């Protein structure tokens, strides 16, 4: 079966920033975390997927179909959640639902009512009176009530308290039990992804730095700690970045098993977090 989301050589040029021929692919049944520092191109990529901005070149296929040629069909099957509220402040939860619902072919009022109850959303309150967490839950309720196969979320957890964040992650975990669905989820809070992501795609300065399963990423990379003299024996290609402190060096390396064999236990190899990987890659680029 074709990937649920596939991006090939996607390019978009702005005056001060370019998305440079990026590639990624997400299979059905999986959650992909899309990480990168602020301004790396996460939102630009997501807006291109949603055809909110126009691509300069490249290809975006959703369920194997071009996202622009089959725009209506594709968008019927996408649930979309944004970092900020884009609903009208001036209307109530029910009125806003009534504006949006008629556009979806497979809108399911029962499912929506269920989420409204589960999320304890006040239907008669105006959108502007909802808290940030409530607004996100409302967006999520809309995104999940029209039988979407692909959930696309742009920084859904930013600015939310840990309780609501954890609730959201639980919902996503439950959702992905359906093997026909896929979730593409951008964030700079990487601890969210430690819990739920199957794949990690890391973007920096408009380029995809890496895209792999989370497990192989965490197995392949290691955080090497030891004295400065150790550094010289490592193949330069295996070094992602180096941080110096008073005890010696901390180095993020690729092919950690190969590197480890060089030292015969004279150095300590720790498991990096996604944050470590993101920080070392970003710093390296800054120093280059």
């Amino acid at each position, binding site marked *: 079966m074709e990937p649920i989301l596939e991006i090939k050589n996607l390019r978009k040029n702005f005056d001060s920033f370019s998305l440079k021929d990026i590639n990624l692919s997400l299979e059905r049944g999986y959650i992909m975390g899309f990480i990168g520092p602020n301004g790396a191109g996460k939102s630009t990529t997501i807006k291109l997927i949603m055809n909110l901005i126009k691509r300069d070149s490249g290809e975006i296929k959703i369920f194997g179909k071009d996202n622009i040629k089959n725009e209506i069909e594709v968008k019927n099957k996408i649930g979309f959640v944004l970092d900020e509220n884009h609903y009208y402040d001036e209307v109530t939860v029910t009125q806003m639902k009534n*504006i949006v619902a008629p556009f979806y072919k497979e809108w399911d009022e029962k499912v929506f009512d269920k989420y409204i109850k589960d999320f304890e959303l006040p239907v008669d309150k105006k959108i502007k009176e909802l808290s940030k967490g409530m607004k996100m839950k409302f967006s999520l309720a809309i995104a999940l009530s029209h039988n979407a196969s692909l959930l696309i979320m742009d920084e859904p957890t930013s600015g939310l308290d840990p309780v609501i964040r954890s609730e959201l992650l639980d919902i996503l975990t439950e959702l992905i039990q359906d093997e026909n669905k896929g979730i593409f989820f951008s964030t700079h809070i990487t601890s969210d992804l430690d819990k739920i992501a199957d794949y990690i795609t890391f973007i920096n300065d408009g380029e995809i730095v890496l895209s792999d399963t989370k497990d192989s990423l965490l197995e392949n990379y290691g955080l090497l700690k030891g004295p400065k003299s150790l550094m010289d024996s490592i193949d330069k290609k295996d070094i992602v970045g180096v941080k110096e402190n008073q005890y010696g060096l901390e180095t993020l390396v690729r092919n950690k098993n190969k590197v480890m064999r060089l030292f015969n236990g004279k150095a300590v190899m720790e498991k990096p977090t996604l944050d470590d990987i993101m920080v070392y890659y970003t710093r390296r680029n800054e120093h280059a």
Partner: protein
Amino acid sequence: MLNLAFKDLLIQKKSFFFALLYIVFFMFVFQSLQQAMLPAAITAFTYILVMGAFALDDKNKADIMLNSLPVRRSMVVTSKYLSVYLFALIGIVAYMILHYIARLAKVSLDIYPVDLSGILSTFVSISIMNAIFFPLLFKLGYTKAKVINLVLFFVFFFGVPELINTAVSGMEGEWQGGLVTFLKTTPDYMITLLLIIGTLLILSVSWLLSMKLYSKRDF
């Protein structure tokens, strides 16, 4: 599509009542307008609501929300054009009701009744005004288009009649005579027909242009 036009009313209930008051204001203040009372009042009523809807779309970044729905951009544009006539229809009905109430209450006001020529003038007036504003709004968004629109608004209300006066008086005798002869010899229905066709033509060009401009926007 009408759903989106009604949405523009729903999001601005307060402005709606304000716009209704504006119709009453026109009835009181512009007693001298006579036949032009209906088109003037309804044009102002429509203007307030159309601009209000664009302003709220802009404030709430609704373009992002709307265009992430399974909706074509051309439909977003078309529904805005439809909303103009929806607002005008509501305005005309409100005008008729107010007129009726004023008559019942025996208010000593000279309110010109709604008639076919009034409706026609209203149609021409709101169509041309919005045909000019809309492509700018769809290209630039409300905030950026606001300044240009404000200038256009004054040009539209004060400049155009002035311009026509100057143009007519500035014409060579032969031209002027020609125009007067044309207006005199052509039957009324023909002039009306030409006016409607001209308006529809301007409206169509504006609509096509708006769709083209909006389809290229990045949000």
